[in-house]
């Protein structure tokens, strides 16, 4: 299967700290690739490095066959990557409507259709259209963040810990929404919640101390109790 994104032996620093030592993985088109690992393993830094928010010091990252190392964040975003950051990344002082409309590169028929689809998926966003983003609940903020990344026709979505801090019922809702989205776009998901990750993901990579240490099909990992205990602390 064609790889949409490829990272090869990527190293990156955050300020003076060497966080990523050897990250390599491939994201096949049309699949959900899950990055797993303990807190501080380097999962968020990996996504930020793909987006150009951290500089790559060694290694290569290619998207749709072209290197994106050294390119600016806005250029990477414009090449077709949507990013949902860990802290949701919504604009607290803008209304829900403005948060969505600011992300729409153009307000044409196709984008409007996507917006309508996403509003059907997250009816709360329609209900609170004129409410400031900062006044939404954690779950609603997460929905807004995902919706904002989805509203443009991106080839790849990078989603960082969408279940973080959410009540179980909201986690189910977010899981359901990502499952619907995966029919239409390729996704890289960083997730601590193994239950959620295993429901959505097709393949996985485990990152430990800035190194990709294990990979395979998600169904295999569910059976591999030893690896789950060793790398994720799940017994």
């Amino acid at each position, binding site marked *: 299967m064609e790889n949409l994104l490829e990272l090869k032996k990527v190293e990156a620093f*955050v*300020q003076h*700290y060497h*966080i990523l030592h050897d990250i390599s993985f491939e994201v096949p088109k049309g699949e959900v690739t899950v990055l797993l690992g303990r807190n*501080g*393993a*380097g*999962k*968020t*830094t990996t996504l*930020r490095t793909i*987006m150009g*928010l951290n500089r790559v010091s060694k290694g290569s990252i290619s998207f749709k066959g072209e290197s994106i190392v050294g390119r*600016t*964040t*806005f250029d990477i*975003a*414009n090449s077709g990557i949507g*990013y949902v*950051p*860990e*802290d949701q*990344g919504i*604009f*607290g*002082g*803008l*209304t829900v409507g*403005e948060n969505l*409309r*600011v*992300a729409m*590169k153009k*307000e044409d028929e196709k984008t409007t259709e996507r917006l309508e689809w996403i509003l059907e998926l997250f009816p709360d966003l329609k209900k609170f259209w*004129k*409410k*400031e983003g900062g006044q939404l609940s954690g779950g609603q903020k997460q929905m807004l963040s995902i919706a*904002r990344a989805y509203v*443009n026709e991106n080839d790849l979505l990078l989603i960082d810990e969408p279940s973080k801090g959410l009540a179980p019922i909201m986690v189910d809702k977010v899981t359901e929404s990502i499952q619907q989205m995966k029919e239409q776009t390729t996704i890289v998901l960083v997730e601590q919640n193994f239950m959620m990750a295993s429901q959505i993901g097709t393949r996985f990579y485990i990152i430990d101390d*800035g190194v990709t240490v294990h990979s395979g099909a998600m169904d295999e990992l569910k059976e591999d109790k030893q690896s789950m205990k060793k790398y994720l602390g799940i017994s």
Partner: protein
Amino acid sequence: MNLRRVETSTWIYLAISFLLIFIPFIVTGRSMQFIFIQIFIFAIFAMSYDILLGFTGIISFGHVMFFGIGAYSTAVTLGRMDATIGSFVLGAIIALVIAAIVSLIVGALTLRLKSHFYAMLTLALAGLFLVLAEKWRSVTGGNDGFTFSLPEFFRDSETMYWFSLLSMVLIFFGLRRFTRSPFGRVLMAIRENENRTESLGFQVTYYKVLASVVAGVVASFAGVLYALSLRFVNTAVFATDLTIDVLLMTIIGGVGTLIGPIVGAGLVEFAHHWLSGLADVHWIFERWIILYGIVYVLVVIFFPLGIVGTIQSKFMNRPVRALRTNRKSDGKKENRKGA
């Protein structure tokens, strides 16, 4: 335009603008008309500052330089050429072009860096323009400045009043449309968090530089009107005090609201006039700036989002556009984030 789709607030602003047209018939005293003219001019100046601070989150300590460029360009042109409408238009065009070029250069040099570089460079450049105005006596008249003749059209104070009012109203609606456009939404997103905006695919520096140019050009037009209203210009138009005044007008009125700076300009100018006028009652009123400081502290305590911002937030259930300090810290936190 579908009239049914026009917002209620637009009708209210238009109604107030319409009522203001009649002020010269009610208030015939020249000094009171002059205060209104000053309010309109400073309202334009403060709105230009609001584009920077309120909508884009850029702090400038030298915004006055654009105001001074406008004032001197008009005064020098009218002082050296015949006092005609043509000379005025030429002077205004020169003012706007110089302001656009200076703001473009300053913005391009500094806005890719952290915002305090812009603040410091504008402060330094405003100082440079002040020194230039002091030393280039053959053109500027130095500290003493110079007077000049106005075109016949502007000699009447009522005409000057209506022209300033019309300018303020047109600039207000123009800037309101600008801030509500897709471009304006990106500016507000930048104010909230630059990294996030860039992650959505926007070249943040480009938007910030253009916001700086718009703010510079509008401030320069306020300077054009200021010179016309005084028929005189001196180096005071480059004084840092004016930047502080306009910053306070914007904060008191409500940052990021556009209407707030107009309210702030009105309050500050009227406070200045009335408090100074009470000098006969007690000497403290001669030092009106002390009382003004107290008013400012009270406003910050009781109206933390500015007068308009607080009213919109509390009573009209409107989203608050005002800049909050915690939003900046969001960005810093994100930048520092490790694994």
